[in-house]
């Protein structure tokens, strides 16, 4: 199953943020702009980290911001935020974070398919630093193998 579309509205490059909360809210804001979620979902993504800690920093430099499915998820979605200056999330090994991938799913079943696709992409250890260095949305889509909208080629 392919990744959800990644339109320009779901990508922010070289953002400056004060802390991890701002970084997660930027990933949430990008999901909102792309029409995948409402603002409530963004705050739930922050809440997951408040509750459970920085476990979402699943590899050096990468945070996978997400929350459970809910009414605030309008359609499955993906967003990517890269930071001008990496920020600490509080992870013992994988800080600081330069790339935040926002993830929204409508049920816990569907995500397993495209999460497998995400795993494929990131099993190449060069992808995270290359995402952090990418200078345009097309470059980010190309690294992830994502399309700008459903059914469109790269």
């Amino acid at each position: 199953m392919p990744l959800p579309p990644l339109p320009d509205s779901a990508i922010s490059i070289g953002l400056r943020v004060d802390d991890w909360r701002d970084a997660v809210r930027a990933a949430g804001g990008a999901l909102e702009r792309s029409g995948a979620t409402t603002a409530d979902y963004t705050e739930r993504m922050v809440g997951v980290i408040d509750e459970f800690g920085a476990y979402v920093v699943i590899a050096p430099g990468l945070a996978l911001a997400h929350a459970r499915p809910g009414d605030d998820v309008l359609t499955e979605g993906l967003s990517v935020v890269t930071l001008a200056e990496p920020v600490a999330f509080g992870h013992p090994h994988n800080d600081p974070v330069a790339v935040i991938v926002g993830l929204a799913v409508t049920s816990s079943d569907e995500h397993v398919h495209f999460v497998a696709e995400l795993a494929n992409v990131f099993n190449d250890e060069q992808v995270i630093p290359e995402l952090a260095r990418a200078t345009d949305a097309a470059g980010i889509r190309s690294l992830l193998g994502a399309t700008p909208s459903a059914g469109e080629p790269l």
Partner: protein
Amino acid sequence: MKIVTICGAGIGTSGILKVNAERALERLGIEADITATDVGSVGVVAADAQVILTSPELVERIGKTNADVIVIENYFDVDELAAKLEIALG
């Protein structure tokens, strides 16, 4: 053999850990059922599991368990997963 992967929300990170743990097991030639779940459900889902895979932050929330708890630093590093699984299962 039952292995459970855990994250806070039960989607996303535990799913990635499941996919890559399956790859690591395939490399080791070990067959196992891997279930992704959230840390709140771990007591029930992992009651009969031999191994729990999770991140450093969530270890203390797992509570009492008979399973081996393996802490994974880089969820995309199949080498790390395979080495730690081999020690736990070998």
